[in-house]
């Protein structure tokens, strides 16, 4: 039987396993110190230990295990802040009120920060003090990354994506796969145009698992007759640097897309159906880049909704029957994309049967924050998502839609695991299937 230490080592990338205890502690301190500014200090100082955030977290709701209380997930870093940087740090140290953190504690917290948190932000909505708990968890992940404690699945994908632009090694490069998808679905793939109004990006999940979603993006853009292009050197929308907590890698991965958008003089960069990719580019990339982005970042559902508003796009009614829609957390709670998918559904003649908790308050699919990629998180993830599946079933919907490929992948995985009867579908694919030719 393997020990927890052996399990931990197995969960890390070789570069991380090789780190000494002192390096881990120093890394955690360095990583978190970089993140602590006035805003995070205010958030850390404000917590009154009311425990209410637990009630918003699907991991706690499913297990009732107090260790899954969201604010507890940043406890080691709260301790560090209070002990080292808060107003009365010397007094806390003198009275022994705030302990120093240990490597063992950091190792224990790896599970809490990576495997049992989707960074979905539901806890941020419930906090009576108004603390954005999820933002603190993002920062804590950055400390954990510096401590060499990011799960290997995220670390290795982030490292590869930072180096090559692809999170995974593939027999054939994504550029070739993209062109192959165009041939498979009979749609032209605009690639490497030197100049285009719109730069398109693609989700690695879509390339690997949902090629029709990729073809649908190209089809919708062709229908809109907007000069657009994919760029071989800035293709993948996902950002594993964000998931891993690797701030510099996140910056480099975003930078690859930014540089390409600038190179082709794009006015708009479109993120496909991927929640975190949008959130990272829309809200965090400029800060890491060091200047406002010289183009707009739009999620594909926003772009389609704007086209519907402008009369540039018309859709035929879809025979979807009773339909449920899952709002990806990164799009609604982190990014405010709430109305666009509903506008699109209305244009398709769909009135969704809303879940008990919906739009800004819906439960996460359970796979966000990179959790779906982490092998040893699977058991807990399945438990946490049962409640979500029940809410979807309760809508009595025949069609189940979403607008994030990672959510879709997580639900597809649940379909296999639970023998769940529903098949998650892409809203974008539905749009592409119901484009209405307009009289010219």
């Amino acid at each position, binding site marked *: 039987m393997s020990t927890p230490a052996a399990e931990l080592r197995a969960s890390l990338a070789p570069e991380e396993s090789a780190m000494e205890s002192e390096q881990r502690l120093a890394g955690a301190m360095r990583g978190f110190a970089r993140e602590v500014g006035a805003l995070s200090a205010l958030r850390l100082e404000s917590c009154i230990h009311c425990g209410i955030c637990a009630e918003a977290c699907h991991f706690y709701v499913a297990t009732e295990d107090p260790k899954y209380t969201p604010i507890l997930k940043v406890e080691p870093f709260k301790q560090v802040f209070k002990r080292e940087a808060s*107003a009365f740090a010397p007094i806390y140290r003198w009275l022994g009120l705030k302990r120093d953190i240990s490597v063992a504690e950091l190792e224990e917290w790896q599970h809490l920060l990576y495997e049992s948190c989707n960074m979905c932000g539901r806890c941020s909505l419930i906090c009576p003090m108004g603390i954005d708990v999820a933002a603190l968890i993002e920062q804590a992940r950055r400390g954990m990354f510096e401590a060499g404690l990011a799960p290997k699945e995220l670390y290795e994908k982030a490292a590869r994506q930072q180096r090559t632009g692809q999170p995974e090694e593939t027999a054939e490069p994504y550029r070739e796969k993209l062109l192959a998808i165009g041939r498979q679905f009979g749609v032209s793939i605009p690639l490497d145009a030197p100049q285009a109004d719109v730069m398109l990006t693609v989700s690695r999940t879509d390339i690997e698992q949902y090629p029709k979603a990729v073809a649908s993006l190209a089809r919708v853009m062709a229908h809109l007759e907007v000069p657009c292009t994919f760029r071989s050197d800035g293709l993948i929308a996902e950002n594993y640097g964000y998931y891993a907590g690797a701030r510099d890698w996140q910056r480099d991965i975003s930078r690859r897309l930014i540089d390409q958008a600038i190179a082709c003089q794009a006015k708009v960069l479109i993120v496909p159906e991927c929640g975190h990719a949008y959130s990272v580019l829309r809200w965090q990339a400029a800060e890491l880049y060091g200047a406002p982005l010289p183009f707009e970042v739009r999620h594909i559902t926003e772009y389609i909704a704007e086209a519907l508003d402008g009369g540039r796009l018309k859709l035929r009614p879809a025979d979807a029957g009773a339909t449920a829609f899952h709002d990806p957390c990164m799009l609604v709670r982190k990014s405010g994309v709430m109305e666009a998918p509903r506008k699109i559904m209305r244009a398709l003649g769909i009135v969704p049967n809303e879940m008990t908790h919906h739009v800004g308050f819906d439960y996460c699919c359970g796979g966000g924050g990179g959790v779906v990629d982490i092998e040893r998180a699977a058991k807990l993830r399945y438990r946490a998502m049962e409640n979500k599946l029940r809410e979807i079933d309760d809508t009595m919907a025949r069609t189940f839609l979403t607008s994030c490929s990672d959510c879709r992948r997580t639900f597809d995985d649940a379909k296999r695991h639970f023998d769940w009867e529903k098949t998650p579908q892409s809203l974008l694919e539905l749009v592409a299937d119901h484009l209405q030719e307009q009289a010219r």
Partner: protein
Amino acid sequence: MDLVNFARGPALKAAFIFFFLGVAWRLINVLLLMHRRDLSEPRRSMASSLLGGLKAIGSRSWPHPEFIPRTGAGEALGYSYHIGLFLVILFFAPHVAFFGSFVGLHWPTLPNSVTTIISVITFTLLLAVLFRRVTHRVLRRLSNFDDYFSWFVVTLVIVTGLMATAHVGGPYPTVLGLHILSFDLLLVWFPLGKLMHAFYLFPTRAIDGYLLTRRGAPS
């Protein structure tokens, strides 16, 4: 100098000085830390985002309806004892005379019998709060010295106040002196522990409310 004069004289003065300097230092310490400018393209205008921040100050005073089934009872308990404390602190006749003398103002008071009943209820609620903290799995897991000591100093003020009102526990001047000393202790502990939430509450709600509104996200 007897106990009561010490408590309301030099001890109170020192406690107030510590309180004001301590609170100011804790707030300044946060402000002194760096702040990164948000360079992303906002979804909402500055005015609308600021309004969202102000709105969050009020709206976070009670949970969103979606959360009430799971959190309503706990929040109601929290609010109840806060309201009790404020009523007794601000409207008990001797308190009005005491605090009024500092600021040169006087305001209407509640009858002593009413404030006594409110104090007893508040004390009972504080016991319930403690019971909940030690029995609720999440609260027990989260709680530290600050949580328990903050509860203790608040409860001590209520208990000694009730003892002074009921003339129990010793000669009235001594019990009154203990009551005022317990208040001095509360003033000293205030900037050191979680009682500071009284000052952090509004900026935190406002700033995160502003940031979420700026993104067009629910707040």
